[in-house]
């Protein structure tokens, strides 16, 4: 198990390196720079700015410089938000993104798996069809349509909840963004766990259990749920990635101070260091999540632990 763990961990390093290099050079290849504005900069000021941020050096040197700083955990100063360093911005934004993302994932798991299981037990009944139709709708409506729709209905129309802002993390401010972020995942997880549950329920060992006269509850909880959750668990990695990319849009629409918003404004402003910081940070996070999923998977299904 230790070897498996180490092996998984080490394969992440080259992936990360490729990610950093890719993001770095792609960002620089984009036309326009951080100091291009409508107002013309005096050439001396522009030269000073380039020097101050090492942008006057050859690109490869800049890259090595960046890697060196990265190894020391230094993301550099933000080119756009001059009063802050990238680390400070990520430190300020991540708790917000995490708060919303974690709640959305939790909501998606609870509701998605429950709905999927419920539908699986009533396969091809009217209830099953309703749940699956709802899930299909949930998957097809993109969150940038769902979010304003909810705002209009619940915030502007009914006045029940705020239309935007974080409010220091008060629950009233979280309901709409978390719901919007969770909806497609609820839908996907419901479909996934339904299909998987149907398959498991049809397998010989469940039939045996039934034949032995075990109750439905026992069969479900003790025998069916664990194998049926396998695809759900392996989907958690991609789900995390989906929640992260979703949060970029959600944070923008609801005006939440998370790091997804930094990514968008950073890219538009050609804030090289900020975009790199978010990419590296999220890259590490997703690699870690995938790694954890692998571990959980190994726990749930001993076959994957076999060396080899």
């Amino acid at each position, binding site marked *: 198990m230790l070897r498996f763990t180490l092996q998984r961990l080490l394969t992440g390093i080259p992936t990360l390196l490729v990610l950093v290099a890719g993001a770095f050079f792609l960002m620089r290849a*984009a*036309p*326009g*720079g951080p*100091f*291009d*504005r*409508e*107002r*013309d*900069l*005096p050439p*001396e*000021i522009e030269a*000073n*700015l380039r020097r*101050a941020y090492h942008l006057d050096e050859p690109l490869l040197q800049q890259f090595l410089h960046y890697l060196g700083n990265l190894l020391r955990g230094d993301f550099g100063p933000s080119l*756009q*938000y*001059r*009063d*802050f360093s990238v680390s400070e*911005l990520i430190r*300020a*934004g991540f708790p917000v993104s995490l708060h919303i993302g974690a709640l959305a994932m939790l909501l998606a798991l609870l509701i998605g798996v429950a709905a999927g299981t419920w539908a699986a037990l009533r396969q091809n009944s009217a209830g099953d069809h309703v749940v699956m139709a709802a899930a299909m709708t949930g998957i097809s409506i993109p969150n*940038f*349509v769902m979010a*304003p*729709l909810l*705002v*209009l209905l619940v*915030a*502007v*129309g*009914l*006045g029940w909840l*705020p*239309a*935007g*802002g*974080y409010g220091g993390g008060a629950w009233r401010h979280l309901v709409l963004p978390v719901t919007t972020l969770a909806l497609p995942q609820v839908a996907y997880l419901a479909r996934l766990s339904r299909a998987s549950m149907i398959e498991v329920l049809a397998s010989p060992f469940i039939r045996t259990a039934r034949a032995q006269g075990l109750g439905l509850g026992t069969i479900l909880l003790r025998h069916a749920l664990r194998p049926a959750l396998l695809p759900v668990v392996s989907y958690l990695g991609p789900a995390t990635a989906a929640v992260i990319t979703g949060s970029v*849009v959600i*944070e*923008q*629409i*609801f*005006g*939440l*101070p*998370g790091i997804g*918003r*930094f990514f*968008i*404004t950073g890219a*538009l402003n*050609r804030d090289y260091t900020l975009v790199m910081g978010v990419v590296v940070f999220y890259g590490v996070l997703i690699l870690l999540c995938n790694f954890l999923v692998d571990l959980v998977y190994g726990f749930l299904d001993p076959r994957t632990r076999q060396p080899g």
Partner: protein
Amino acid sequence: MPECRPQRRAFLSALLCGLLAGCGGRQEAGQPARVPVGGASGKERAAVQVLRKGNGAEPESLDPHRAESVTAANILRDLFEGLVLETEDGRLMPGAAASWEASADGLTYIFHMRPEGRWSNGDPVTAQDFVYGLRRSCDPATLNEYASILFPIRNAEAVVSGKLPPAALGVRALDDTLLEIRLAGPTPYFLGLLTHSTAYPVHRPSIGRYGAKFARPGMLVGNGAYRLEEWVVQSHIRLGRNTHYWDDAHTSIEEVWYYPIENGDAEVARYRAGELDFTQSVPLRQMRWLRENLPGELRIAPYLGSYYFGFNTTRPPFRDNPQLRLALSMAVDRDILTQRVMGTGEQPAYGFVPPVADYTGQRPAWAAWTQEQRNAEARRLYREAGYSEDNPLVVEVLYNTEQNQKRIAGALAAMWKQVLGVRAKLLNQEWKVFLENRKRKVITQVFRSGWIGDYNDPYTFSQLMHSKNGQNDPGYSSAEYDRLLDEAAATADPAHRRMLLEAAERRLLADQPLIPLFFYASKRLVKPWVGGYQPNIMDHHHTKDLHILSH
């Protein structure tokens, strides 16, 4: 000042708008209709004096010498105060200086500091603070992107470019209360420049103590009516009243919140949900709905900005081809453009300089014609330039990716096709790509452009088309225009200067290196209980001049 940043995420906005439009007529939440605003007298103030403003993008800095955006300037106006201040209706009044006098040649100004002026920590505001601030603002090490605003001050240009040390700047303190500023040349708009954030003082001891981090809550010491209480990046900035401020007795609002909300539709949604009292803008697509449903809260006023499409005059087909440029310009029906395509209070423009103080905007003779007459003349010029139905002009129109720009470019192309048979191809590019290409003048033919004046004077516009100006994207180069401008910059006689600048604009319009289209309008939603609000041409508002009526 660069005009407003292009509105991002246009596709989101488009969707949002469609949804909002479909929801018209719904009863607004949080809009009590029972008590009249301001009580029986209409002037009663609310017990809670808190103002919540939408403020566009997150400010890039609250260091007055490093900030450059409109959104940062809005907040800095509350945190700091220049020698001169603006009233809510846009006139100049004494700020940190109680009075001033200018020498007869207009080259030396003496400012008498306000003796009761205080920093937010209680320290007195002295002439030395302004010397330090102006030197820091011009010091190349400060990396001030807006330093060129101060170029009228003697030696400022040399200091900014590093040829002279900051101490050589033409600014000195005669004592604690007397400040002398010497200018490089006569600058009638100089006092107006002093309201700009680049001319704000900074508190030297806190910069010494905190360095680059001085512009943060708990560290920032300002001399404005408010102090920085809280800054949560991308969420809000909260300011509280500065009790040391010299005019604190007249401050009514205790607390002001600035929310960065880039998406105009999201901003309006939050306004309608009762979370904002004041928006930064209004999306074009919601104008009709707002006009019908919130007419009293929609505040539209002329704004010091000129919107135009430029020709690349350094390359064919527009190089040395004023007939063709005029033909394309005349064929555009500005009334249709402002009323049907925009419809948000913009004024049709036939000249380049918008209405500013002490200046008569120039208009070509054809501005008085009917559109039919213009079209006929446009067709004549078009043929004269060698084009016809069989040999139409094929041209590329470049604009930045944004819904409004697309509509305008599309309208232009349609008018040209209808009147002249021109085959125009629309090309949009992301903002920074667009800026780079427009500046390089290689692939551009016709491109959108616009400019918001930095100060209330024609020169902030006229200078853009000087052949040496870095923002002369059309590449316009006229010896006569340059000479008129240089002369105007050197003359101390205001009447003569005005005459020269007006002659320059006439020259420009005869050459037509650009198509003037309209003069901007500022537009925002303001809740009826925000008292003291007056639209002004610079769209500058100080929170200290506003108050909240009971509601």
